[in-house]
């Protein structure tokens, strides 16, 4: 899983059925120290995260489908947690 910050939303009408009624968030990856790591992902939001919040991203299909309660579907990235705090001693990880 990775840390990211919610920076926006994507609105889509025509999509694969698994994304119906789902919120899609644009999330910028962060380093453990809270800086932008470079790169982003569009993730399905199941925890009602708000823009600006630090979140936990799951980028793995089987786990994502398990959360959605489906056996198939083109889903992979998901916002699975809202981060309250990170304590990190490393400065070069990420």
């Amino acid at each position, binding site marked *: 899983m990775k840390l990211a910050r919610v920076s*926006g939303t*994507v609105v889509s009408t025509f999509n*694969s059925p698994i994304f119906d009624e789902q919120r899609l968030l644009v999330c910028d990856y962060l380093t453990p120290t809270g800086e932008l790591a470079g790169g982003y992902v*569009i993730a399905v939001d199941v925890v009602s995260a*708000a823009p600006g*919040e630090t979140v936990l991203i799951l980028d793995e299909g089987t786990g994502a489908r398990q959360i959605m309660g489906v056996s198939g579907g*083109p*889903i992979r990235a998901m916002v699975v947690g809202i981060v309250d705090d990170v304590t990190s001693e490393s400065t070069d990880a990420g």
Partner: protein
Amino acid sequence: MHLGRVIGTVVATEKTPNLDGVKFLIVQPLNRDSEPEGKAVIAADAVAMAGPGELIYFVGSREAAQAMPETFVPIDHAIVGIVDQVHVEPVPRASAKRSKDRK
């Protein structure tokens, strides 16, 4: 999933049999600000409605095949949605503080 722009089409008559009827489009990946980033990829059109010029989002790797009606197919990128609107806040220039406003 990432944002992409459809920049072309690919027609292939001879292909793996279980890809019959699948439409292939050339997709230029975009960054969070919808600017081109990286090399273009050939993606299967899982929504069957995307066309050149359109802003889409696509999924890569194994999940791409999951987007198709037949899920055991050799596909590594698939268009899974047509974007109506993207709202992205600008990158904060100052060193970002982690949000603690949610209790």
